[in-house]
């Protein structure tokens, strides 16, 4: 871990451990906005950290964003941090119609890829119905991503604007996943930017942020399980002395290690389009492991883990939700398998060696890796 990340981790953990206790999580489950937590994060400059430096942010990149999302999720922090960090970064990576002066995108952001929409002219009014938009009810701005060939359009929608209506919905962890109805919502020229990446890249980045959250939640679930196995005595011995429990915990550690390595290598190379499939791998492995690790954690815990007051369920309910969001493992495995078969049998090994960030700058032979 480099020094920047270590410093971020310390700051974040200080904020989170005090403000993500059982009471706070229960209130968030009930629909309350975790305003104190968010304010503390804002005071520390966290949500705005991926805003470009010339626009008043810290100019952190996605690798740091991934790390922050992971740490926040290990505390089950009920705030749209992952969404805000990514949306800010995308907005500031994109070209605005009128580059200066730089206007802030918003404070509490959410985003959504609108596959069904055609690119809009600046100033046009937008009507659409968007399902399962994360945290919409607590966000002030929605960043709409509209596919446009090998680019995409980013459209800033103020959620307090006329023509915006929400129907509340939630995931299994009670995180808001609202339906957003847009009826002739007007956009100004400063609200539309063009991003030099295809929408499937943005989806991969969203998936990577979810993978980061899953790794964080899995780390916490494994740590809690180890602690419980050391404390709880059964048949006169600590649980952890039983081979069956050891086997559960070792299996959890293995899957978590694989998912973590996959996450870190994808985050380290998020700027290289030829290594984009690493994000697919990261989300796929995290999604598959999430189910196994959640089940094994509950298996280790027995009945106590099934209660709402115990601290395992905020993590496992998130894992069960996040694994489906932004493409589950079947979705990303399918895409990766399609790529491998498209590249052909003899290209598999060179592709495997090239795709790894350990190989340094990528060679020509891997440039077909984006095609499917």
């Amino acid at each position, binding site marked *: 871990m480099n020094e920047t990340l270590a410093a971020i981790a310390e700051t974040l953990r200080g904020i989170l451990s005090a403000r993500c206790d059982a009471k706070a999580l229960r209130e968030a489950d009930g629909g309350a906005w975790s305003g104190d937590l968010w304010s503390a994060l804002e005071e520390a400059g966290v949500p705005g950290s991926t805003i470009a430096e010339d626009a008043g942010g810290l100019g952190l990149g996605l690798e740091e964003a991934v790390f922050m999302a992971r740490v926040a999720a290990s505390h089950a922090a009920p705030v749209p941090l992952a969404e805000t960090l990514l949306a800010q970064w995308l907005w500031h990576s994109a070209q605005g119609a009128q580059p200066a002066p730089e206007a802030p995108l918003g404070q509490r952001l959410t985003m959504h890829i609108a596959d069904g929409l055609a690119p809009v002219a600046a100033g046009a009014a937008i009507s659409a119905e968007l399902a*399962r938009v994360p945290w919409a009810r607590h966000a002030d701005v929605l960043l709409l991503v509209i596919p446009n060939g090998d680019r995409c359009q980013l459209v800033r929608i103020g959620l307090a604007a006329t023509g915006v209506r929400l129907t*509340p*919905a*939630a*995931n*299994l962890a*009670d995180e808001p*996943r609202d339906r957003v109805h847009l009826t002739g919502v007007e956009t100004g020229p400063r609200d539309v930017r063009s991003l030099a990446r295809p929408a499937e890249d943005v989806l991969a980045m969203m998936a990577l942020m979810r993978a980061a959250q899953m790794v964080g939640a899995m780390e916490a679930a494994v740590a809690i399980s180890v602690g419980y196995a050391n404390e*709880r*005595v*059964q*048949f006169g011995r600590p649980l952890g002395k*039983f081979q*069956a429990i050891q086997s559960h915990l070792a299996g959890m550690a293995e899957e978590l290690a694989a998912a973590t390595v996959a996450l870190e290598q994808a985050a380290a190379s998020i700027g290289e389009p030829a290594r984009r499939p690493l994000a697919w791998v990261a989300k796929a492995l995290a999604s598959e492991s999430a*189910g196994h690790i*959640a*089940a094994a954690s*509950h*298996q280790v815990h*027995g*009945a106590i*883990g*099934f*209660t*709402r*007051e115990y601290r395992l*369920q905020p993590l*496992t*309910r998130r894992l*069960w*939700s996040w694994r*489906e*969001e932004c493409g*589950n*493992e*079947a*979705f990303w495995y399918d895409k990766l398998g399609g790529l491998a078969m498209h590249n052909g049998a003899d290209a598999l090994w060179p592709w495997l060696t090239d795709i790894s960030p350990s190989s340094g700058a990528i060679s020509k032979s891997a440039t077909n890796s984006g095609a499917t």
Partner: protein
Amino acid sequence: MLPTFEPALLPEDVRALRAHVRAFLAAEIAAGHWSPRANSWTIFDEGFSQRCGAQGYIGMTWPKAYGGRELSSLHRFVVVEEMLAHGAPVGAHWIADRQSGGQILNFGSEDMRRSILPRICTGTCYFGIGMSEPDVGSDLASVKTRGERSNRGWRINGTKVWTSGAHRAHYLIALVRTEPRGESRHAGLTQFLIDLSRPGLKISPIENLAKERDFCEVVLEDYEALDEEVLGGPGQGWKLVTHELAQERSGPERFLSDFNLLVELIRRLDGAAHARKDVGRMVARLVALREMSISVAGMLARGVSPELQAALVKDHGMQFERDLPEEARLLLPLEPGAGTADPYEQQLARTLLFAPSFSLRGGTREVLRGIITRHMGLR
């Protein structure tokens, strides 16, 4: 050495009984009393239990003198599997019908039988299980709830936990240590009938991660039990609880909890070719599990103890129940959550949240696997 599952033939009159139950359930659903739900044996519905009682669907195997019908375990099996397969809310009478009534019939006093069993049969008297304690899961012999002799009988102190529906039930059967733990861990334990309407009890529901309040904590503070409320006699607790667990492990709820999810999955798949293989696998496993379960019911009907076979069906069935939602979510992906009207989405969300509990009831996997290997001749 290897377990055998003798085939059982359902009695001829089961056909009519099954048709009767199906008609009853179809009418219930048509009347809008409830909708089919996965894991329906945790759903408490007094009205439904009373209507089941009116149909004679509770306590079917018990003597007519106590309100029963003197039918076989196979008859009961058919009624129970129909209820579960249709996702009917059997939770209120479930424990009483499955295990507590049998304990009272076999080990209770004649007064107890006469006063309680007929009420169970009418679907108006409900039970909770009083085995587990805060630091006692699979290792039941280590229960810490203590019973001491008192003037009137016994004074009981301790805490029972994970007692399903205790806040809505009338009784529970509690496993209590009545003599200090000696050489044999299994000696000195006694089962008591606990009347939940009496003083000396503090019952607090425990919210589970699906936000339902099914489990309770029951604190006994100088609860006074009468001598005649001892089941089977002081010190007989281990034998009795073993019998009770065998009943708890043997039923079709061990693989039918989320059957309704499979039904709704097939409906939503609408013949999708990519899903054929995985759907077929689930169906094949169900075919075998159901046949094994019928064989266990047949053993009960013949008076043979199915300890091995019941443990085996439970462990194998539990694995099936846990696999099913995981298969479903890959065949028909969606983001599960609250507040959807779609039956498949509802069942999937519910089953995902309940899946961790599938392995809790009736003993952990390790306990079951220990029973299995012991019977297989592992020394």
